[in-house]
């Protein structure tokens, strides 16, 4: 499976009647098994880009090609759980076919066992984010879209969840698109990093990371970090 993004532009008309350019031409593609990371300043149009890719916003110029049968798993910036359904029901509603074994496994990994019967209003933000992750994983997605999934989690948990995302990505041929502010998340999870400019967003640098995810040692990571720093300074 393959995701092809060819956006030639997106404008937005404000209430005052002025047109604003939100996205400049943006082209990239993603293969199964690949993790693409979008990194850019706040308000540069990342969320708009995601909405277009997900098919929620059709008012743009260009084409998005993804197999129509591709199952999508999404972790929104806010958890977007149904407050009137329990944690378990929230997951099951998105993934009705999931087996009890799979579900238990998922809840165990994300440490949600004790919260199955709770309502989202009774959860902390960190827990709600984990439920959102569980829901996205539960659908066994072909395209996994993660919009700042690890924001506002403590380092230990973020690290563990990062590991879980890596495991999932390795276990199935899934195309993953990660939006993040954190360079650390990007270099630990990404295969290709797309650095975006301020609004209207365009890709200023595309950086592939050659070392397979599982083999990235701390030393290798810090080397990548330094290289990226130099590269980004250069492009500015």
């Amino acid at each position, binding site marked *: 499976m393959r995701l092809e993004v060819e956006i030639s532009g997106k404008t937005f008309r404000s209430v005052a009647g002025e047109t604003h350019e939100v996205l400049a031409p943006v082209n990239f593609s993603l293969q199964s098994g690949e993790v693409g990371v979008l990194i850019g300043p706040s308000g540069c149009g990342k969320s708009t880009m995601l909405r277009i890719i997900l098919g929620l916003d059709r008012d743009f110029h260009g084409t998005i090609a993804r197999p129509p049968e591709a199952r*999508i798993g999404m972790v929104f910036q806010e958890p977007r759980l149904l407050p009137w*359904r329990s944690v378990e029901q929230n997951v099951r*509603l998105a993934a009705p076919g999931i087996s009890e074994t799979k579900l238990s496994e998922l809840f165990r990994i994300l440490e949600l066992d004790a919260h199955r019967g709770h309502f989202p209003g009774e959860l902390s933000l960190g827990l709600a984010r984990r439920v959102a992750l569980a829901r996205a994983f539960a659908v066994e997605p072909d395209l996994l879209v993660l919009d700042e999934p690890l924001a506002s989690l403590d380092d230990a948990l973020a690290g563990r969840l990062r590991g879980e995302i890596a495991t999932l990505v390795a276990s199935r041929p899934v195309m993953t698109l990660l939006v993040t502010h954190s360079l650390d998340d990007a270099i630990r999870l990404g295969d290709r990093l797309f650095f975006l400019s301020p609004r209207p967003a365009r890709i200023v640098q595309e950086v592939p990371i050659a070392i397979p995810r599982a083999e990235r040692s701390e030393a290798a990571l810090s080397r990548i970090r330094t290289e990226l720093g130099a590269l980004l300074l250069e492009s500015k």
Partner: protein
Amino acid sequence: MLRLLSFTLFLAIWWIAALFVGGAKLPSPPAVLDVIIAEASNGALFLHLGATLARVILAFVLAMSLGSAIGYLMGRVKLADRLGDPWLILLLNLPALVVIVLAYIWAGLTEAAAIAAIAINKLPTAIVTLREGTRALDRSLDEMATVFAMPRWRAFRHVVLPQLAPYIAASARSGLSLVWKIVLVAELLGRPNGVGFEIGVAFQLFDTPRLLAYSLTFAAVVLVIETALVQPFEARATRWRPRAA
């Protein structure tokens, strides 16, 4: 306990007032109870209450289902809202009496005319409430359902309906009280049975005990339905909300 006390207080005030005013204008509680027992034992009470209840249920169900559907449509589709709005304003401000009289003139003194007239009176408030509820729907949850490719019906049942439930409950609550009031007028004007008809007869004979007997049993039935059906539904619909202090 407090409810019982409040009810006893009501009875006491009534009784004392009856002593001052005199039995012709305000009969005492036992006098009214005698009439209730007499009417109940010859079956008339149940016949009239049953007829009224049947009308209430039919008109209420008709108005709620139709009103909810139209309100949802108007909340979702801009064109429907623009087209429907003038009608809605007209219906909202049309006096109940006008609707009832016109229904009887146009459709005859029939059961269908009575039920339709009652339903039409309730319809616009159901539409307005459900339209507001639909406008207040959380778009971000709709998007979530779209992204996860939830089938329409599942999304409606689990994403949309729970958000509308408080509005449906509010509309049912206010609608029921409206229907209770209007059904009696419709019966008074053009039906040969029902509580409204009996009250009309009692009025013509200035038979206050009979009037009170029917009104109070009717009020009791309303109270029972409110506490046994409407309130539990409301509580269930909002059960996931954190409790107010």
